[in-house]
């Protein structure tokens, strides 16, 4: 899909083709969520994470945005597995930018993703209140 478009790297194309991690969990006491962004600004994401003890076991996303943003949300769902609440609170968007070859003009959209991760950390029972 769009293999000849130099704006999108291999990982973006792969994830846009599969949309791995898209969807949501049934709500429950072991599911936390974080949300950030605004459609009017062109990027909005909702992350859900299933937790066991002090670790994330699985994650899902729903995203509205450009291909880099959707692909980054997909990538994130795999990389959050095993993360602790503290790690969520310190997750940095640059990891996703590097992995997905996101152009600098779109770094701001990844900050939206970072906000959603930190929002989820804030919503973890016993965590700090959400700031988003």
């Amino acid at each position, binding site marked *: *899909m*769009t293999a000849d*478009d130099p704006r*999108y790297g291999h990982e973006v194309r792969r994830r*846009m083709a599969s*949309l791995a991690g*898209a969807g949501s969990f049934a709500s429950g006491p072991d599911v936390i969520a974080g*949300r950030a962004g605004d*459609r*009017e600004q*062109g*990027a*909005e*994401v*909702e992350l859900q994470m299933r937790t066991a003890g002090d670790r994330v076991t699985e994650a899902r*996303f*729903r*995203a*509205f*945005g*450009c*291909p880099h943003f*959707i692909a980054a949300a997909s990538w994130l769902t795999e990389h959050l597995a095993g993360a602790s609440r503290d790690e969520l609170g310190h997750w940095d968007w640059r990891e996703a930018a590097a992995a997905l070859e996101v152009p600098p003009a779109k770094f701001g959209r990844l900050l939206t993703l970072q906000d959603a991760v930190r929002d989820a950390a804030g919503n973890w029972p016993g965590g700090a209140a959400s700031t988003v």
Partner: protein
Amino acid sequence: MSEVVYLDNAATTAVDPRVVASMLECLGPGGDYANPSAVGHGPGRRARARVEQARAEVAALVGADPSQVIFTSGATEADNLALLGAARFYRERGRHVVTSRTEHPAVLDACRQLEREGFEVTYLKPGPDGIVEVAQVEAALRTDTLLVSLMHVNNEIGVVQDVGEVGRLCRERGVLFHVDAAQGAGKLPLDVGRDCIDLLALTAHKLHGPKGVGALCVRREPRLGLVPLSHGGGQERGLRSGTLPTHQIVGMGAAYRIAAAEMGEEGARIAGLRDRLWRGLAAVPGITLNGHATRRAPGILSVTVDGVEGESLLYALPQLAVASGSACATVSGEPSYVLRALGRSDRLAQSSLRLSLGRFTTAAEIDLAVQAIGAAVSRLRAVAPEPRA
């Protein structure tokens, strides 16, 4: 059917094979490749005859006399020559220009240049349907209004302005009237005499002719003055110096001759395909039409797709060559200024598609486009979060 369905004919069209054949006659050894200004020898005179034949073919499509046609590199140059040339020539007569906010950048940027030169420009805001009413133009006219510029067919949304009524108003008031007809010529009837058009900008490549050639039709009776933009060999009555590209001009002439002969039948066929496309897309929830429902050119359909992001929508349609607004505007990456002028939000403007049909578009391609867009929209909406309450 080709691998990619080409629905970007408002950006440019494939050159008709009949046009290609005409052009090839002017390129190689034994062809009419000589400089058409070199009328001192036979090959030059033959090239000149080809140019004059093309001039007559271009003029015939728009009801002009061949002597009114000045060949240029395209509609952008023609627009610039018209606006800058006329304003500079008549600057002592008045310094006020009227245009609309939804004109092509070739007009808007020329108007900005005029502002830098001391002119005042009124930019009319069209209604939500993209139409600039004649009454708006009338209300904007002042005693020092020199020129009105209004496009025939909008390149992004395809709405048709009533250039005839505006032309008659301008003629009554003694105001020059310029029309950018890049999208309308050959698609809809246009007559510079009937419509009182003093300056008409034309191009070849939107009409299955070659890129790199266009024309400006200049009123001759009474003669209209223009200050040229470039200086050199004095070709085209001194208004557009430079060696005439015979093959390009002959290609434009052939494209216009074919359009004149086939406009009625082809327009009806393309309008039918456009309506088929719209019926298919209208069945997808959240897709709305941009621009007036009936005052539209046959080949352009602009829609807004709510609930999906524009770049992702284009990404999800690799089997279609479509635009997310005008090709010229998308270079900037900004939401379409035309759609914003119609009152669309930045988000909705950004989530819009322009699908433009041409001579070689088929019903099977339209059906494939409807299916592809419907599937892409469903997939992207499925992955989006529920809107906030």
